[in-house]
């Protein structure tokens, strides 16, 4: 299980990822897939400084990530693939041609136009359609912010209502 999680989280690298998931999984590396961050050395340095020294962070565009996923799967260490948006994950799933079997919605926070589904998941109609499209490719989509929480299936997420 070298890639333990394909996670959508608009905070990217933060406490829940580094500590909440990182420690129980004994995480060795994070693959951060984001076209903007991949083009900015300053942003990369910012995220590198956010992780403990024993953890490495690799940065890729969606296109580049799809090409190197197999190598990460072959790693002896456990890793997480992290994206900041549903659109990015949809593009990654398509580009990865069947290599991604499950997607975790870890945090999509409130912004105008989004409806509250769970405490940590707010979605626009377009984002809901994109998640359904990911699932239609045979990928299991669940929401789960931390390891101790229940993984909520996409169908349940999309019929839930949360104001928090």
């Amino acid at each position, binding site marked *: 299980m070298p890639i333990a999680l394909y996670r959508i989280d*608009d*905070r*990217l*690298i*933060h*406490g829940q*990822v*580094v*500590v909440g998931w990182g420690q129980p999984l004994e995480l060795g590396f994070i693959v951060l897939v984001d076209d903007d961050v991949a083009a900015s050395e*300053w942003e990369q340095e*910012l*995220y590198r*400084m*956010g*992780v*403990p020294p024993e953890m490495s962070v690799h940065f890729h565009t969606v296109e580049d990530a799809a090409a190197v996923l197999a190598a990460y799967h072959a790693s002896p260490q456990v890793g997480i693939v992290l994206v900041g948006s549903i659109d990015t994950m949809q593009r990654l799933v398509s580009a990865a041609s069947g290599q991604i079997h499950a997607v975790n919605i870890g*945090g999509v*926070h*409130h*912004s105008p136009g989004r409806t509250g589904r769970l*405490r*940590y998941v707010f979605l626009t109609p377009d984002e809901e359609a994109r998640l359904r499209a990911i699932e239609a490719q045979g990928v299991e989509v669940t929401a789960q912010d931390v390891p101790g929480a229940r993984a909520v299936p996409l169908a349940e997420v999309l019929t839930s209502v949360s104001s*928090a």
Partner: protein
Amino acid sequence: MTADEGQSGGVRGVVAGHGTFASGIISAVEQITGRGRHFVAISNTGLCLDDIQSALVRALDETGARVIFTDLPAGSCTMAVRRLIRERPGVLLVTGINLSLLLDFAMQDDVDPEQAVRAALDRGRASMVVHGVTVPSA
């Protein structure tokens, strides 16, 4: 965002963190020293990175504070402050704080913030000790 302190006068630091960490540690400072009003609390709960950064900018602008304290080096508040500092070079970030550190800073209200931060860091680090176990010598 929770701006627990309504008064802007005398605010010297912004405390930002997970859940109710910030309001909680400020309440402890208030209970011990009566100087909780020198701090403003921000919680990251329910906020994306951009909204956390906006809340921090507002807090700095409204209070004139130059120091931001955060709970966790890899936390989203810390990441947001480090982005913010790029555009505001005069702002100091202190991350991984504890109560001893914040108390020490709170008590140094006639000292330059940077100098107060250095002294508070020493106090905060020194306050963490283990009792009741034997540590084998190297």
